[in-house]
């Protein structure tokens, strides 16, 4: 009976979401105040109903109600409670419900925190979000209902894919979706202002913290996913240019461009059309990402068993959203594209150029991701586009972007004397060159690519530190300034990590019997024994590896090869000794014929800096959002 409540709540939510989507928008157009007033209560009701649906689904998992098809397919009575809850979004239907629930969460946040904003604008924003919510709810109810019954009920569930039985899974999808879905707010603000014709600095000031918030979540979500792939998939890589990774990375690139472009719109009133276009694009790409992941057209970790109706529904939805917003854009976008005047050496010009690089890189990643689909659709054969494509296109585009990142923050609006900027920056340049030459030599081998990586990273760090020092002399730096510097510093830290891993990691696949030792990155790793150990819903072969350096014992690593009772699928659980300057990564392969084991060992210098850099970027975003001008001045200026 309880699952029917959830189902019913979903249907009611669709009805209310339609009200939320239609009446406030019509009301705003025709000036009917009483219709406008419906926006907030409708949004709150939708949120309430979706919360019920979500809790009901979680409850069904908690009590092991295997008469619900989705629960029977993704859970199992032996599954630990934490993973039973994580399993709520472990499959297609539940993750879409999460998507919509988060969309509704963003909506009521906007509704609650926008008291100072003019009510027509609020009604329009909530209305646009309501339309998006209705579309997705219709999708869930018609093609992917998580409350479908399975009668007679299954004896036990099929269980969650063992790969997903990991704390990373509990956090990665909600984080990522918060980001994906968060761009819908920027999108709704853009559409609302196109509808009202009020594309001004106030609009940019309003959408900026929301966009930053979405961007922060997306950054953390992608970083978590990458970290999870690193330690859980047993591959030891941190990025594979997997189509689904790309599907989250492309909106991130465009979202980053949007953040910067919004800054120009807020401060200088410029780039209005461009900003609106980016907001539409970022959200459309999030939808496209959902389509790519959920339709099953892509082969990937995330591909679920497919139902073609789903793909077609999302595709139609996508075409509707993109099509109608572009038509609206063509009709209402302001005519003067670049806004206020600025010179080729102004901050506007630097941001614009950076935007071009970001959007171009997003385009190239998108092309590589969609190319195999395109070729297949044209019946020209089946192909795959591998990581070398992405590396050879993406990296060269990022190089000039990093150079710009060192200079851009020094420029001022409208016009800058570049000569004085360069005179100030000579020290950063010197530091960068020294770092680019010496660090590779310290690491033992000079390669041009590694040299370039360190040079660029230290260029950004040097320039940032000098600017912070200069700003501190002038008075207390604002949070938004510190946020920008922290995020840029995060990029530099990230680049250091990537360069170190790319140039100096060591990987060995070896055959080891008990007592044997393998050397990697100046460490010795000895296999001590392999034994059978029981787990809650699996049993594992666990290896003990003694890690030592120069004869000094450091730690013992326990990689596992698990077999889960509910599935025939074995599962490699790597053991990692993490450190600030290096990770040692051991994973256990199959048992070979002669009592020996296939073992993979990695030495990964500075690999944690990759995720550390992402954390810094997110922290920068949080700092920028908390700048006081978003809290106080707003009320005065807008009301």
């Amino acid at each position, binding site marked *: 009976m309880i699952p029917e409540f959830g189902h019913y709540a979903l249907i009611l939510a669709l009805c209310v979401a339609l009200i939320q989507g239609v009446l406030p928008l019509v009301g705003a157009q025709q000036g009917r105040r009483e219709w406008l007033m419906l926006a907030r209560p409708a949004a709150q009701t939708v949120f309430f109903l979706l919360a019920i649906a979500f809790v009901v689904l979680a409850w069904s998992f908690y009590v092991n109600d295997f008469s619900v098809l989705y629960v029977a397919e993704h859970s199992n009575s032996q599954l630990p409670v934490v993973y039973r809850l994580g399993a709520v979004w472990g499959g297609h239907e539940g993750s879409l419900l999460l998507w919509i629930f988060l969309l509704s969460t963003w909506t009521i946040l906007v509704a609650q925190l926008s008291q100072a904003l003019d009510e027509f604008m609020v009604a329009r924003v909530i209305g646009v979000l309501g339309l998006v919510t209705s579309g997705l709810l219709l999708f869930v109810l018609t093609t992917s209902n998580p409350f479908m019954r399975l009668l007679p009920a299954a004896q036990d569930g099929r269980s969650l894919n063992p790969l997903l039985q990991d704390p990373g899974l509990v956090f990665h999808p909600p984080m990522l979706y918060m980001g994906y879905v968060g761009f819908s707010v920027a999108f709704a603000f853009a559409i609302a202002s196109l509808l009202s014709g009020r594309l001004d600095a106030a609009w940019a000031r309003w959408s900026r913290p929301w966009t930053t918030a979405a961007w922060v979540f997306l950054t953390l979500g992608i970083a978590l996913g990458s970290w999870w792939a690193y330690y859980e998939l047993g591959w030891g890589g941190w990025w594979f240019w997997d189509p689904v990774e790309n599907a989250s990375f492309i909106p991130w690139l465009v979202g980053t461009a949007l953040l910067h472009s919004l800054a120009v719109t807020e401060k200088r009133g410029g780039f209005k059309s461009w900003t609106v276009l980016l907001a539409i694009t970022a959200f459309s790409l999030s939808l496209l990402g959902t389509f790519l992941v959920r339709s099953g057209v892509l082969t990937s970790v995330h591909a679920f068993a497919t139902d073609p109706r789903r793909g077609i529904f999302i595709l139609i939805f996508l075409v509707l959203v993109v099509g109608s917003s572009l038509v609206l854009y063509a009709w209402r976008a302001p005519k003067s594209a670049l806004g206020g005047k600025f010179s080729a050496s102004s901050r506007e010009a630097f941001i614009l150029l950076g935007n071009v690089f970001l959007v171009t890189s997003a385009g190239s990643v998108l092309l590589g991701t969609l190319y195999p689909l395109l070729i297949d659709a044209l019946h020209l054969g089946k192909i*795959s586009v591998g990581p070398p*494509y992405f590396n050879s296109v993406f990296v*060269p585009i990022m190089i000039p972007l990093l150079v710009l990142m060192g200079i851009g923050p020094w420029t001022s609006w409208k016009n800058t004397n570049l000569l004085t900027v360069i005179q100030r920056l000579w020290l950063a340049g010197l530091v960068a060159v020294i770092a680019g030459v010496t660090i590779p030599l310290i690491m033992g081998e000079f390669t041009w690519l590694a040299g370039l990586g360190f040079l660029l990273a230290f260029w950004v760090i040097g320039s940032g530190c000098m600017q912070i020092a200069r700003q501190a002399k002038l008075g207390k730096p604002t949070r938004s300034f510190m946020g920008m510097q922290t995020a840029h510093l995060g990029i530099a830290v990230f680049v250091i990590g990537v360069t170190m891993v790319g140039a100096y990691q060591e990987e060995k696949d070896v055959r080891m019997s008990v007592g044997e030792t393998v050397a990697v990155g100046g460490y010795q790793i000895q296999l001590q024994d392999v034994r059978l150990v029981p787990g809650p819903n699996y049993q594992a072969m666990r290896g003990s590896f003694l890690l030592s350096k120069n004869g000094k014992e450091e730690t013992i690593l326990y990689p596992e090869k698990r077999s889960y009772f509910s599935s025939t699928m074995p599962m490699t659980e790597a053991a990692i000794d993490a450190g600030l300057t290096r990770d040692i990564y051991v994973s256990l392969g199959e048992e070979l014929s002669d009592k020996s084991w296939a073992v993979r060992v990695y030495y990964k210098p500075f690999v944690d800096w990759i995720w550390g850099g992402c954390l810094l970027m997110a922290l920068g975003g949080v700092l920028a959002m908390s700048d006081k001008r978003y809290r106080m001045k707003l009320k005065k200026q807008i009301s």
Partner: protein
Amino acid sequence: MKPRHKRALIIIAALAVIGIAALLILNALNSNIALYVTPSEVAAGKAPKGQAFRIGGMVRDGSLRRDGLTVHFVITDLVKDIPVAYTGILPDLFKEGKGAVVQGRIDANGEFIASEVLAKHDENYMPPEAKHALEQAQKNGSNK
């Protein structure tokens, strides 16, 4: 410089960025695409020469043979068989009788030397390329 010229300069810079990116992309796409080929197509000599490609199909039952870290197995579309050798650790879901995709090239002895073996991450999931190869072979078989 007049403002008009400055704007032109910015536009030229932007176009240059896009142009260079387009060149990079075309160049990279040309050299980094791996074509999917079915075992029957390989047997018919339709595999690309001197370039890495991918074969999708099933791992033939009983064909798995280990030689230290090197694994030999046969990938099949149930019509033609291709022997494959791979050195390294196989993915968790690699199994006889299940679908797999291998990437690499054919050596002088006609053995496919795989640089990468891909199996899927869900035991109930079949790589579409492997499925495609089986369907293709079946279709050709029934036409004959």
